[in-house]
């Protein structure tokens, strides 16, 4: 058993699943349900075809065997079921809103007929929104594959972990394969290339994620905000940014619209991740602090401000036991410096950049919804 690792892995999962869901619930839910009304899609974007397939039903049946084990696939599956309403599928929603905000194509093409549009969105753009969600979900599942060598001490558990891994690999692969065939059906090789590169970005972002979650200093540690932004863009931003751009390409909008859509997606993701990372640090003090990632935005800012040596010292002081950190103590140390306020500033910067990017689109309900989403990200 590796208590630290598994606990941190769970922190990591929770952070991922709460993506787009940690804002003050009332405000955020309002923004989202309004947006869903505008795109004419009240429920989940996740492909029903996929969810109802024999393959995934099979996995769902097997996953029950994992109940009571520590395999992350269980949490991921739970998250997909309970968190799916309005929160998990923000990528798809943003893609649809941007598609609608950009309007009908100015270029005549056989597959871009105005009468095929539903709520102002082309079918291909709806498919793209679904593909973005499939890819995102595939990585939620794949990043939960565990290393079996960490489990060799407990025989029974090893078997569970092996089984959980098998299910995670297969279901993630299944979602990715469906994304591949879905992409091919869009009949646009530019879009295939763009979204495929986003998959590569995601891998690179996720690859170093866990190694840098460990408390001790290691080569995976993010040293400054530039590195943080780069890493966060890969793991949390590239898929949205490139999907937004691809939605414009599908409607044959000008390169300038594509650039702006990409910009909106990129800054929204970065702003949103900062917003999520800031949650443990905003609001009132006191009480036991729960674990937060040491590579979250505010902590990286803090580390950069106080310097390596002082940070190392603060970490030592917060260590109760060799593998246990007193997060309340660390929290207080971080709060006493400017790291949090710098992160707030950066969050607002990205929110505003996102707002700026969509100003070139004509005013519409869809654009307002996009503005509200960008606005909600900056509210702390």
């Amino acid at each position, binding site marked *: 058993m590796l208590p630290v690792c598994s606990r941190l892995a769970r922190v990591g999962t929770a952070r991922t699943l709460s993506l787009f869901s940690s804002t003050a619930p009332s405000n955020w839910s309002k923004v989202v349900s309004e947006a869903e009304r505008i795109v004419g899609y009240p429920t989940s974007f996740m492909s029903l075809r996929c969810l109802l397939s024999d393959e995934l039903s099979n996995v769902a049946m097997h996953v029950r065997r994992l109940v009571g084990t520590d395999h992350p696939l269980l949490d991921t599956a739970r998250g997909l079921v309970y968190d799916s309403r309005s929160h998990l599928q923000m990528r798809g929603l943003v893609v649809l809103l941007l598609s609608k905000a950009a309007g009908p194509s100015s270029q005549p093409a056989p597959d871009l007929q105005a009468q095929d549009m539903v709520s102002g969105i082309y079918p291909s753009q709806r498919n793209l929104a679904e593909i973005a969600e499939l890819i995102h979900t595939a990585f939620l599942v794949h*990043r939960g594959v565990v290393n079996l060598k960490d489990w060799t001490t407990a025989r029974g558990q090893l078997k569970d972990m092996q089984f959980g891994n098998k299910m995670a690999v297969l279901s993630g692969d299944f979602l990715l394969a469906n994304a591949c*065939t879905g992409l091919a059906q869009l009949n646009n090789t530019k879009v295939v290339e763009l979204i495929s590169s986003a*998959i*590569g970005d995601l*891998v*690179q972002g996720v690859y170093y994620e*866990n190694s840098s979650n460990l408390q001790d200093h290691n080569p995976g540690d993010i040293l400054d905000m530039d590195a943080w932004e780069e890493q966060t863009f890969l793991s949390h931003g590239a898929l949205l940014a490139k999907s937004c751009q691809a939605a414009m390409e599908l409607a044959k909008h000008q390169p300038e619209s594509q650039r702006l859509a990409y910009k909106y997606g990129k800054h929204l993701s970065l702003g949103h991740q900062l917003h999520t990372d800031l949650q443990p640090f905003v609001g009132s003090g006191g009480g036991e602090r729960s674990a937060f990632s040491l590579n979250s935005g505010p902590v990286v800012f803090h580390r950069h401000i106080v310097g390596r040596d002082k940070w190392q010292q603060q970490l030592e002081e917060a260590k109760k036991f060799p593998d246990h950190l007193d997060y309340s103590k660390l929290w207080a140390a971080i709060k006493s410096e400017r790291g949090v306020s710098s992160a707030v500033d950066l969050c607002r910067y990205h929110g505003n950049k996102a707002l700026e990017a969509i100003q070139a689109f004509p005013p519409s309900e869809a654009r307002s919804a996009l503005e509200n989403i960008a606005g909600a990200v900056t509210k702390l």
Partner: protein
Amino acid sequence: MAVPWSHCWRRSLTNCTKTRLCGYTPSPRRLPGGLVVPSPAGRSGRIHSDTKLKDPFSLAQKDLTHLYEDIKKELFVSGPELRSLCDYYFDGKGKAFRPMVVVLMARAINVHSNNKGDLLPGQRSVAMISEMIHTASLVHDDVIDGSDQRRGKSTINDLWGERKAILAGDFILSAASMALARIGNTTVVSVLSQVVEDLVRGEFMQMGSKENENERFKLYLDKTFKKTASLIANSCRAVSILVNSDPDVHEIAFQYGKNVGIAFQLVDDVLDFTACAAHLGKPSAADLKLGLATGPVLFACQQFPELHSMIMRRFTSQGDVEQAWEYVIQSDGVQQTSYLARRYCDEAVRQVSRLRPSPERDALIRLTEMVLTRDK
């Protein structure tokens, strides 16, 4: 550099080959499930062109010299560790069987279509992509099967852990998909995306066991198509689409790849029983240990009905693997499976013989023989 591949195919006499696979022709027995196997027309009426038969390997070599370097160029990663994982199997030690079939087919179809044998850049890309998709699926398969050895070296999951192995596989797939998009042909993108879906569906099919014997055999062949033959068949179809507009020609390419692919896997399943571990680069009876009933077991089950319950419980009881192994060796399951492989190769020959004669076409014909006689 794919130098050592030809060695794998030369039939070296080894002590560990229990059963000779070639030259054995059992009387054709009805297959389980009244299965329709391709007619052996090609056997008797084989047409060869006058050109001297060339070794498929040397013929394809010139198009594949830089295969692995080019694949590595596609795998553009920033992190050094992820980079070394992605490069790991592209070390030039693989057989590169798929790229070889693809370039030979491409040149054969080019001759058939316009009398010029030159390889188009897109066709070369398909050859490269076929090897990338194949490798990505190997990396994931090794995690699913819990393998620690592949091609005589440790697997990625054994060295770097399961989590990173899966991500590396995903990365190779994304790079393949980008290269595929850059060919710029939407039909080719569709054809090869289908392969990715087939690979996963094939893996899912492997999870269940069917009670009914006929269904079981059908499922086995269907799984074999999806997991092995689809990649070869659709890559052949893709290179044909890139140069020719005649659907009949695409179909010839597809059918050749499909039949050779299924034969290739049937021989693989036979080798799991006949080749020794060191020679194969992976442990023998590996399939039984994974709970999989392949061709030899399914045939043996006709002679030894005791196998049925073992198949259903996926050889999980104590001594199942050893017992099943014995039954298979005592039965003619291995010979029947080899015979079936031969019939598929005959059909592949029949199909590709419809193309205009060329050294590459004849190499594809010879290749079917080598698929049957390979011993590792």
